[in-house]
């Protein structure tokens, strides 16, 4: 046991875990800054400017503020579930980062069933929302939780089905191998990314991912004009911060997954000295994820919220048949090409 713990491989693993956990946490904190800044610019406001240069210390100030806020537990709430819900929400959101390949070697563990693991873990996130909404014993949280659970399971269908098209081409569930399978080129110069081979799946994935993470224009879990703040109306202090953290973590996860499956993961032009070459894949990966996140934030700033019946109709009557048709078509083409 002691030898195993002192093993250099294990120490490397610990280092990776610390780097990824710390990096992700820092990135999540600064995502709040990015979102506020971008939305402010869209609305012709300066956004946070007071705390530090360009408001860059704002996330730290927010964290401290959350820490010293009153920890309100409503009298008729179900105390245990009420306290547990933010943690239940946060753990699966963070856990999916343990299989995401940030670079060829910057991955904590490459599971053979990585993709399935991520879907299994992220679908647990709905429990945090439902438990939080129900245990608050208040009307707005309950309504937000009910709406969001129905929404999340509806869009999870098209999300998982859209990925099957990619699997038919890559023939593996391991995330690192999905990235490696996209390293070749089409016609000699276009990278063989799955977005060019599976444009329909990409579209379905991106739309379902927005709905899956409860972001505008599908943020029915929150919908502040109707439900105050949705499922976390009763939450305050770091419990509220954990819900927010989980939401942003889910956003990063689905963006990272989109990058891995459709945009070639860490692939990108390689140049410069050896040291730069080891860092470049991670830079490309982060840049690609950043594009998705920027897109998310712009969506929030520009697109109005749908109506709930429109949302359900869109998911069940459009995205689901579309992703099924995509599977049938893709499998036919692959079968003909293979035989």
């Amino acid at each position, binding site marked *: 046991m002691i030898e195993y713990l002192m093993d250099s491989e294990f120490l490397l693993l610990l280092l990776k875990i610390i780097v990824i956990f710390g990096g992700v946490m820092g990135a999540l904190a600064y995502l709040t800054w990015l979102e506020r800044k971008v939305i402010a610019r869209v609305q012709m406001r300066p956004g946070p400017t007071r705390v530090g240069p360009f408001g860059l210390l704002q996330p730290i100030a927010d964290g401290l503020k959350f820490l010293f806020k009153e920890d309100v537990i409503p009298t008729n709430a179900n105390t245990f579930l009420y306290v547990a819900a933010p943690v239940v929400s946060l753990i699966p959101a963070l856990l999916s980062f343990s299989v995401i390949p940030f670079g060829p070697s910057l991955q904590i563990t490459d599971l053979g069933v990585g993709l399935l693991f991520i879907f299994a873990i992220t679908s647990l996130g709905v429990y945090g929302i439902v438990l939080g909404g129900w245990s608050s014993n208040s009307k707005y949280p309950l309504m937000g939780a009910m709406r969001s659970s*129905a929404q999340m399971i509806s869009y999870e269908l098209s999300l998982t089905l859209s990925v099957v098209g990619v699997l038919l081409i890559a023939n593996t569930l391991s995330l690192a191998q999905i990235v490696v399978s996209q390293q070749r080129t089409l016609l000699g110069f276009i990278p063989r990314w799955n977005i060019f081979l599976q444009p329909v799946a990409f579209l379905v994935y991106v739309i379902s991912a927005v709905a899956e993470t409860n972001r505008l224009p599908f943020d029915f879990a929150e919908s502040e004009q109707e439900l105050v703040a949705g499922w976390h109306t009763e939450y305050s202090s770091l419990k509220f911060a954990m819900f927010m953290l989980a939401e942003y973590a889910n956003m990063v996860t689905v963006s990272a997954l989109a990058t891995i499956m459709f945009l070639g993961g860490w692939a990108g032009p390689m140049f410069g000295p050896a040291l730069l070459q080891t860092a470049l894949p991670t830079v490309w990966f982060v840049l690609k994820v950043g594009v998705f996140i920027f897109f998310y934030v712009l969506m929030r700033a520009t697109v109005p919220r749908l109506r709930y019946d429109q949302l359900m109709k869109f998911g069940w009557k459009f995205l689901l048949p579309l992703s099924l048709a995509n599977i049938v078509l893709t499998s036919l083409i692959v079968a003909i090409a293979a035989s």
Partner: protein
Amino acid sequence: MLENWAPILIFFILAAGFGLVSLIMSYLFGVRKPDPRKLSPYECGVHPIGTARERCSVKFYLVAMLFLLFDIEAVFLFPWAVVYRELKLFGFFEMLLFILAILAGYIYVWKKGALEWER
């Protein structure tokens, strides 16, 4: 095989630890000035009317059941897609039959109006 999962356990402990420490810290550092109105359910400043423990629309349960059916389909499709290159056209027609069966159920559900939210 199992050593692939050990890092996930470490990561889980780290994430859970972060959550628990946050809970404890906000319990320790947060101010506490409880009063009955603050601790009552939030209803935009109005006195709470009735309880939140009411029955909810049956549509939500319907969505949950339909989700189960179609999610099982997705579970079948995942392993099929991974070994698809070996199955070739045989695999295609086998899965086409399965998808057609599911599709029949889907059309039935649609015609019965289970997908209409406003009714």
